[in-house]
């Protein structure tokens, strides 16, 4: 296997640290990892960026494809797009102090998400209210906020793609706003701008893996919370210790503000908690998400209007790139909600006017989503399935993973596709002799 295949758009493998223990094989929800020569090798196209393998690896051989803060030293204007999960990493610290800490780290602008989360909430409520009459989309609608869930649906549950809510994700709204306001200003002055997404999970695609012509302009780089935490914590401590903090003037309202509503989004259930929807559910955890999607595909839950899925336990707080424990973080968020209270600040009429213009409509075509994965996985013919069944009879079916595949069926599929040899199975000889 070439070196190139050791990284995906979301995750990097360190060959030297990998001991071939294979704990990453079983946890991968798309069965994208194989062991070759006792080193983990990933099938690049099937990775959906959930980060389950990062969590499972005991050797720390797998890491997210994010950049370290050293990128900040370069000569450009850095804009930080901050996920509300970041505030939960500092219990007892006000969000504005965290944002100030980020600016002291060297970010020229820090964009808080609460403004855009509120727009998303409003647009979602409006879509659902209209859908009650028109039934343009089938119930239950599935939240598009967690990108891993959308990729999982495109990969494993393509028939559920029409259920995904066709409203732009809050992050997309935020990026669009920043691009149209801030960045044009800087590019007019002839300065380079880089957008940094401060994320709790490895879902942001590494721009290096895209072909050069499709790379976003300006540059978009993902930063894990754990990448910036040590330095940020230092600044936050200084700010906390200082007697009085100079008032920091920012140009736009969304550069400093944070609300209870927004901080709640870090938790599972935070998305639906303040929405005006009759019947909604919040599901978190990869196994739970998969089993719920299976049930939806079988026609259940049609009386529910909106389901919020998060593939990490307890929501984004449980993301693999966070620093403090998810239950501590949850307690911090709950404290913050108590302090700020719930409530919205934006003018609903304004948002509805923008909704009428179709500004929040997601333009992602369903076919485009399926083609993301369609090319990578060639369909099996009926003869191939018959062959797989024959191979399954030859091998034991105890899913020992000694061959380097996550389970016996995947191994049989690999054999039929020509990616593995039958003799790689330890049991194939003894078992077939016993049978005859």
């Amino acid at each position, binding site marked *: 296997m070439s070196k190139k295949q050791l990284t995906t758009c979301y995750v990097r493998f360190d060959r030297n640290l990998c001991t071939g223990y294979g704990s990453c094989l079983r946890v991968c929800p798309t069965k994208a990892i194989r062991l070759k020569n006792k080193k983990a090798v990933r099938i690049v196209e099937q990775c959906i960026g959930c980060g389950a393998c990062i969590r499972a690896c005991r050797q720390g051989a797998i890491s997210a494809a994010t950049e370290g803060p050293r990128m900040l030293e370069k000569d450009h204007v850095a804009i930080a797009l901050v996920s509300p999960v970041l505030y939960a990493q500092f219990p007892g610290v006000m969000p504005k102090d965290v944002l100030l800490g980020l600016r002291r780290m060297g970010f020229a602008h820090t964009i808080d998400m609460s403004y855009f989360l509120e727009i998303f909430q409003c647009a979602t409520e409006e879509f659902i209210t209209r859908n009650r009459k028109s039934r343009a989309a089938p119930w239950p609608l599935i939240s598009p906020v967690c990108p891993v869930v959308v990729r999982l649906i495109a990969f*494993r549950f*393509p*028939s559920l*793609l029409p259920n995904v809510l066709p409203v732009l994700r809050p992050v997309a709204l935020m990026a669009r706003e920043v691009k149209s306001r801030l960045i044009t200003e800087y590019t007019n002055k002839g300065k380079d701008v880089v957008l940094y997404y401060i994320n709790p999970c490895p879902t942001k695609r590494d721009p290096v893996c895209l072909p050069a012509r499709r790379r976003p302009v300006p540059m978009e780089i993902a930063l894990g919370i754990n990448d910036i935490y040590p330095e940020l914590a230092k600044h936050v401590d200084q700010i906390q210790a200082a007697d009085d903090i100079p008032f920091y003037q920012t140009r736009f309202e969304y550069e400093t503000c944070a609300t209870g509503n927004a901080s709640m989004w870090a938790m599972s259930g935070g998305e639906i908690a303040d929405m005006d929807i009759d019947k909604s559910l919040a599901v978190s955890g990869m196994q739970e998400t998969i089993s719920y999607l*299976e*049930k939806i*595909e*079988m*026609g*259940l839950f049609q009386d529910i209007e909106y389901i919020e899925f998060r593939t990490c336990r307890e929501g984004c707080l449980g993301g693999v790139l966070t620093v403090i424990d998810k239950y501590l973080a949850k307690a911090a968020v709950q404290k913050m909600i108590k302090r700020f209270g719930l409530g919205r600040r934006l003018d609903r009429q304004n948002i509805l006017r923008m909704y009428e213009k179709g500004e929040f409509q997601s333009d992602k075509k369903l076919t485009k989503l399926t083609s993301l994965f*369609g090319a990578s*996985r060639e*369909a*099996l*013919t*009926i*003869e191939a*399935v*018959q062959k797989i*069944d024959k191979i399954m009879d030859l091998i034991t079916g105890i899913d020992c993973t000694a061959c380097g595949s996550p389970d016996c069926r995947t191994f049989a*599929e690999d054999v039929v596709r020509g990616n593995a040899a039958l003799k790689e199975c330890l049991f194939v000889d003894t078992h077939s002799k016993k049978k005859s």
Partner: protein
Amino acid sequence: MLAILRGLTDNDNPPFINTLPARTRATSDDFKLMPLLKKCFNIKSRDFIRAGEATINVQNILKSMDYDSRLIRRVAICGYEGEMNVVMHGGDGSLCVEVDTDWLILEVSDDGPGIEDIELAMKAGYSTANDDYREMGFGAGMGLPNIKKNSDRLHIESGKGQGTVVRMFFFMPEGGKTP
């Protein structure tokens, strides 16, 4: 092959036959329509926790063959409803799928008490489920009507004390992806 099956569906037979004895009934074997792939999965009676697993297995096979996703959705709904019928009312049974390039048959069979009056069972809202099942959220009497709605053709063979065989036919929609 499909033409023969389509011909079978277009005649004036009622959508379900229970008056004829089993041997004279037209089955896929009589038309030499041996499917290219046939797989069966067991269903255990009263096992509510694992109910749906047979359907998920069928779905996974169809998905690995890149069957049309609209068809998979319909198969999934029908399979689950059929499976729940077995789990609630029937004895132990099985869910079989016969797959060909442009059609597939789903067959749910069990050796339970059988259906006395199929026409009545087909009515929306009619259910023989007891209060325990209703408390669990089942027994709305929508199982068989739902299957009828989502399958292209439906055969039910049953009688009191004879067990039940529900056979559902699905045809590839126009322009659908075939394996």
